[in-house]
């Protein structure tokens, strides 16, 4: 009379596919797969029929064809004789440079605003709250358009700077001109230039390459000096005085390199109808940059504030009890813990910035969407291929950024044992 359970699997009945949890998930997945396949096949079939009706095919040959349009901001050589593929790269680089600039400035602004919003100073914290709330609750597109309208309509035309009784004047000791055509800044020039360094697709200025190497060398020298000082301190108890050595290591090689290459600034001058010389920032770029900075800065400020608030008060009290000064407490105790909370949302804000650069369509900045997804698409009539390539490009950038985030998250994760 022992209660023997029926041996499982001895007999398979068809109803088990529905009522036995072991098989039910299989049934669901098969049905799901079936429906997905039908849906996918339906889409592909429709696309093929539609393409055939319009007499089109799918092909990426157009990328090698002559583009035939100009791009007003280019980081690599490009003329209207270049190919569509090259226009794609130019657009991608414009997207990336805008994204990088905006990420840096938004981070700086966001950290300052977030910290100030927590300040005990009533006026400052209220001002920062107003800034954050205003920018978070109004669409980014509106900010871009407003800033662009201000830059192009309220700033003076270049000829307002002309003559004895000029109505406008250049800022910062006559070096920066803000006009309705763009902003003219002093530009770097090298008298004894080292020429360019060709890398196939892009050519890099050797001058900047040298400067970069010098900076890397200086930083490495500085760190070696600090390590050495720490070693001496641990051995003898006295830390050697290093501040003048570090200053020398940081500044001197840079200065020598700059002087050797004959570095000087070229100032913009009013010639004819416009300013010439110096560097030139387009209004479209400035409007995008400013709007992305202000808008995303407000979000980053909230992330920073949340991150600092997430650290329990006991941590700072413990640090004070150990006798740490306020700034050491911040550097050694609060910030390392707060960063663990701040960095993941910060990186997703970087992701948002990168995707939001596509709003450049509102101001005519020549980014990836304007070249590949705009003029190339319209000229070649290859909607399907262009949209596919553009989406894939954005997707790859996003995946790279979130991949970096995952690596970082794993490296700072609390190791629970």
């Amino acid at each position, binding site marked *: 009379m022992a209660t023997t359970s029926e041996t499982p699997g001895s007999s398979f009945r068809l109803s088990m596919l*529905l009522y036995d949890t072991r098989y039910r*998930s299989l049934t*669901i*997945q098969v049905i*799901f*797969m079936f429906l*997905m396949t039908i849906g996918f096949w339906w*889409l592909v079939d*429709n*696309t093929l*029929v*539609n*393409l055939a*009706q319009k007499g089109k095919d799918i092909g990426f040959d157009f990328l090698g064809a002559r583009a035939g349009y100009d791009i007003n901001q280019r980081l690599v050589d490009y003329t209207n004789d270049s190919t569509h593929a090259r226009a794609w790269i130019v657009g991608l680089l414009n997207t990336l440079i805008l994204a990088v600039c905006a990420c840096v400035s938004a981070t700086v602004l966001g950290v300052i605003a977030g910290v*100030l919003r927590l*300040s*005990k*100073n*009533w*006026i*400052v914290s209220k*001002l920062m709250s107003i800034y954050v*709330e*205003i920018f*978070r*609750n*109004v*669409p*980014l*597109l*509106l900010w871009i*358009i*407003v800033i662009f*309208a*201000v830059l192009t*309509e*309220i700033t003076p035309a270049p000829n307002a700077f002309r003559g004895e009784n000029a109505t406008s004047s250049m800022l910062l000791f006559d070096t920066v001109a803000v006009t309705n055509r763009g902003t003219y800044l002093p530009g770097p020039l090298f008298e004894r230039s080292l020429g360019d360094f060709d890398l196939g697709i892009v050519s890099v200025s050797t001058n900047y390459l040298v400067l970069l190497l010098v900076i890397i060398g200086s930083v490495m020298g500085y760190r070696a000096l600090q390590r050495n000082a720490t070693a001496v301190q641990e051995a003898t108890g006295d830390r050697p005085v290093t501040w003048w050595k570090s200053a020398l290591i940081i500044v001197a090689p840079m200065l020598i390199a700059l002087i050797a290459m004959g570095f000087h600034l070229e100032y913009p001058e009013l010639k004819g109808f416009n300013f010439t010389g110096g560097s030139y920032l387009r209004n479209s770029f400035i409007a995008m940059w400013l709007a992305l900075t202000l808008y995303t800065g407000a979000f980053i400020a909230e992330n920073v504030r949340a991150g600092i608030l997430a650290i329990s008060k006991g941590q700072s009290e413990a640090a004070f009890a150990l006798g740490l000064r306020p700034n050491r407490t911040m550097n050694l105790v609060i910030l390392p813990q707060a960063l663990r909370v701040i960095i993941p949302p910060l990186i997703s804000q970087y992701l948002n910035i990168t*995707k*939001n650069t*596509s*709003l450049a*369509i*509102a101001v005519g900045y020549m980014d990836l*969407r304007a070249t590949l*997804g705009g003029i190339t*698409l319209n000229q070649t009539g290859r*909607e*399907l291929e262009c*949209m596919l390539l*553009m*989406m894939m490009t*954005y*997707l790859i950038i*996003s*995946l790279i950024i979130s991949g970096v985030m995952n690596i970082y998250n794993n490296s700072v994760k609390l190791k629970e044992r």
Partner: protein
Amino acid sequence: MSDTHSNTVAYVRKTMLTEQAPPSSQVGAVRWVRENLFSGPLNTILTLLGVLCVYYLGVHLGPWFANSIWNAGSLSECREILQGASGACWGVIKDRWHQLLFGFYPQDAYWRPTIAFFLMIVAMAPILFDAVPRKVLWFSAVFPFLAFWLLWGGTIWLPLLALAGFVIGYFAFTALQKVSALAAVIGAMVAPVLWWLFFAGPLDEVLSNALPIGIKHIQSDEFGGFMISIIIGVTGIALSLPIGILLALGRQSDMPLVKWICVGFIEFIRGVPLITLLFTASLLLNYFLPPGTNFDIVLRVIIMVTLFAAAYMAEVVRGGFAALPRGQYEAADALGLDYWKAQRLILLPQALKISIPGIVNTFIGLFKDTTLVVFIGILDPIGLSNAIRADSNWNGIVWELYGFIALCFFIFCFGMSRYSQYLEGKLKTDHR
């Protein structure tokens, strides 16, 4: 020795001193100012900078608002009245408010979106606030069909027949429940689809010809202004939450196929800008559909915006699930609940409560993103502002027009974030 010592005590007070007021620097406003505004050199500098900032804004904005002009037909007229003084020219809002709110919707039909808007508030009230009687929820269920009819017009049969699909689904469910629960679910899903695909269309034609009860039909391309933002935003919000929850459940599923399809979908949508999806909706959707189909641009945009928000929503809800302690899942299993019951009764309520801030942030983002539809030719407030600024009367106006649009968006978005804080407070169950 001790005697002399005791004698040195010359005087011992026998009465209490009257209580004295604390030093003036330690009370009231002075103390508050010292502690909060001038507690150190850095703080003092910040305070001065802040005051300077407020002063600068006040000096510029004060006269600008004080000299507001409402009665002007053009910007040049405004400038004539102001004669060089600083002042806001709100005449543009007075002149064009109807466009900013309704786009090119026929003027004699403005009552329709207005009524729909107020009915929307009624329909949303029982969902947002507990105090509203539960019976109003029936109205909330009917409202989408009513709003569709009010906004687009046409005969009343199309929305009624669409609504009938749900009723048929309900009857199929109750009828088949006697057979088996699974059959009931399948029946509830299949019957309405069959109804909509094969019966609703012809029946609509027959009824519309026989009994043409209705109001004037209005094309989607006449829609615009905040009306279109609210239509897209509210529909997207209402649809993206359930789809997002389903995607989040799919991503957590034990079934690899379902899981990977959900992951792929979420990561793809989150990886591309919304603008590319909108362009897909306007340029490519015709490729993916059977030749000759041509469906409404507003509907396409709503689908894309909803899918976009749903992917973000899925990640937010997944975060809520991840924050639940493992014990909650085990407890649900221990009670013998099946998957859907465990989700509905134990896991989802807690996960959703945790993710309220993220959900509302996604809603706010979606509502702000409705402005992007301007790029595919829908005249939302920003599209209309371009049109107004292109008019020779208002060429060159910036702050008044954009300020008005920004204010409207601010009210909606700030309202949503305040509501989320209220909801969080209401649902808070821990006693801290």
